């Protein structure tokens, strides 16, 4: 049954063969209709400044996981480093994230008796990614995620205390920060970086990537004192990057123009879980300097967001802890409609196909056991999560046909008893129990734009690849601004691993570059 969904034509993406260069074409238009080949791209990147206002060996753009990991490693390798961010606050999406870090063979997995390996993680990533992932990069990620997590714990000092499951993984492998937020890691990385002597400047927006006549990236044009989102603010300045620029500017989920060019369904009608500054101008600036983009139209919708609260909200933390413990119901029919533990794309597409919000629910055994108390409390407070004394009351609230619903719950409960879902193949966890104990909790689900899998092409050294099919000298990138690692679907908790693994690689290699002058 679940296979049906994937085969519906309207749902699958526009073929699997993606042509690189879509964004660069757009970038070319923005630059006044210049055709952007490798050479013209460099021309579009514009001329060298008469004078540099500041200079560092390594200039990092973005203060999220990837940028801070890169900055720390570059600094430790002896480079002088500055990290800039256009927002008045640091941390990008990283600091509002849920703190789930996927890695195989971790301390928390061992304590919970979970068998895992880099091979299994790699297989899960490739399968969810429809095998569109760049296999070399995916392999590096899976092989180094464990070491990256240890670095975050032992070197940075961040605490990870809970093991979680995310849809699409074959085992529990998300190691969650102590406060269920990426802030635990970002803030400790920021303190570490500053302690090492890395300079951090917020309200500094990268406007243009500067390349010299040989096409080597040599610095950036910025606006200092920029007041997001007022484009009239800020003063132009030029920062020289003696060795390299590292672009870690995150994804573009909140860039309605760019995301709609890539996936026309994603109009302003879809909300986003991202910070408001998650836009694509820095990525486009790199393209204008000759960097190649890939798989830009694989844009992920989160299937666990609620239409009853703003942004990411609390419902995702409720929903994701309940899958495999409680059923997801279409209120129009009273029936289940999809594998609750399916990956994000499968589930979001299934909900969009239904065309109206669906419901995730759990009982008073599953909810207190699984859901982070604060998320539950806050979700109940803002009304996105609701509590009901009986199944009847729940059905009435969401206008669910009662009889069909009761029958479906009994059916689900029978699957839970035998730990096997005959209808959709949902993974049912060993500790799961039938949904029978009142009060019951429920929330509505409607997808929001969450992650952009596409972005700049990088190689195994995190060096950006150019339209001339050669590494682009002087430019490295890591994190969500890069593309191809996750293919069609970025699995939950794998972004953190991606950012730390490739951020560190980028930082080390950038510091090793020979200075250009």
């Amino acid at each position: 049954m679940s296979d049906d969904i994937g085969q519906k034509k309207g749902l699958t993406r526009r073929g699997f063969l993606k042509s690189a260069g879509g964004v660069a074409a757009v970038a070319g238009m923005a630059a006044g209709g210049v055709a952007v080949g490798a050479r013209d791209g460099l021309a579009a990147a514009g001329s060298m400044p008469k004078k540099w206002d500041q200079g560092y060996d390594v200039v990092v753009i973005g203060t999220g996981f990837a940028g801070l990991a890169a900055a720390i490693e570059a600094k430790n390798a002896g480079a002088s480093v500055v990290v800039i961010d256009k927002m008045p606050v640091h941390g990008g999406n990283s600091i509002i994230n849920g703190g789930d870090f996927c890695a195989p063979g971790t301390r928390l997995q061992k304590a919970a008796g979970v068998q895992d390996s880099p091979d299994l993680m790699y297989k899960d990533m490739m399968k969810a990614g429809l095998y569109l992932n760049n296999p070399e990069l995916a392999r590096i990620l899976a092989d180094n995620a464990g070491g990256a997590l240890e670095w975050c714990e032992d070197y940075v000092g961040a605490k990870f205390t809970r093991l979680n499951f995310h849809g699409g993984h074959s085992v529990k492998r998300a190691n969650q920060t102590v406060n269920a937020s990426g802030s635990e890691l970002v803030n400790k990385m920021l303190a570490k970086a500053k302690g090492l002597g890395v300079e951090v400047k917020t309200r500094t927006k990268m406007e243009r990537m500067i390349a010299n006549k040989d096409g080597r990236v040599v610095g950036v044009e910025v606006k200092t004192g920029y007041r997001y989102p007022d484009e009239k603010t800020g003063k132009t300045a030029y920062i020289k990057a003696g060795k390299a620029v590292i672009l870690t500017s995150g994804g573009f989920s909140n860039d309605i123009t760019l995301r709609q060019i890539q996936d026309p369904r994603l109009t302003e009608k879809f909300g986003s879980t991202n910070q408001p500054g998650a836009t694509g101008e820095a990525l486009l600036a790199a393209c204008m300097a000759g960097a190649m983009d890939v798989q830009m139209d694989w844009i992920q919708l989160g299937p666990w967001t609620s239409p009853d609260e703003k942004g990411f909200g609390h419902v995702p933390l409720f929903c994701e802890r309940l899958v495999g413990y409680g059923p997801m119901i279409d209120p129009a029919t009273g029936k289940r409609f999809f594998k609750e533990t399916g990956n994000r794309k499968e589930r979001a597409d299934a909900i969009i196909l239904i065309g109206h919000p669906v419901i995730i629910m759990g009982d008073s055994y599953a909810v207190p056991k699984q859901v982070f108390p604060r998320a539950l409390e806050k979700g109940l407070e803002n009304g996105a999560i609701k509590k009901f004394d009986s199944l009847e009351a729940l059905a009435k609230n969401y206008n669910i046909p009662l009889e069909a619903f009761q029958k479906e719950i009994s059916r689900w409960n029978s699957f839970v008893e035998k730990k096997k879902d005959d209808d959709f193949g949902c993974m049912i966890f060993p500790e799961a129990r039938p949904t029978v104990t009142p009060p019951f909790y429920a929330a509505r689900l409607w997808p929001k734009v969450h992650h952009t899998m596409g972005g700049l092409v990088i190689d195994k050294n995190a060096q950006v690849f150019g339209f001339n099919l050669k590494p682009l000298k002087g430019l490295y990138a890591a994190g969500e601004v890069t593309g191809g690692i996750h293919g069609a679907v970025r699995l939950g908790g794998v972004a953190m691993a991606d950012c730390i693994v490739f951020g560190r690689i980028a930082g080390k290699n950038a510091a090793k570059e020979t200075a250009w002058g």
Partner: protein
Amino acid sequence: MTRKHGNIRFSPGWLFAAALAFGVLLVYIGTPYAAPKQVASAKAGDCAACHGQEKVFSPSHPDTKAMSYKDCLGCHAKGGPQMLQGKLPGSHLHQLRGVTCEKCHGKVAKPEAVEEKLCRTCHNAEKLVEKTAKVKPENPHTSPHYGTSLDCTLCHRQHAKSENYCNQCHKFNFVVP
């Protein structure tokens, strides 16, 4: 050419003179919505010193020229329905409570934007967290993301409308002074 407007005929000369007079008037008092003058020596309650003829109060509001902040509180008790917090720009609240322009900007001919550190010399972050601990749905002075590290000026503006920065992603009904 003359223009007909109702029964009255305006000659170009007349129009020009009228426009000139209006222009001079504008320069003199400022338009009702022009930025107010920032007169450092103005008494806190003397609205006209900066705002000129601009009507900043409803006609029934008592004259404030001789008033101090304490006098305002008679009607505008803090926490009450009429409170000034969130209504008046921060600089006015400061001014009313004796924190004059000079106290932040110094005695200078052309005041410049001050560093945020200066705010923290009076407003201790930890104390603020305690003070607003009971505000619902969240304490505005600490966050799971940024702790107490954020710039005061992200929300609290002195010379412009304050803003609820959290509301970019959340929906918190804070009153932001």
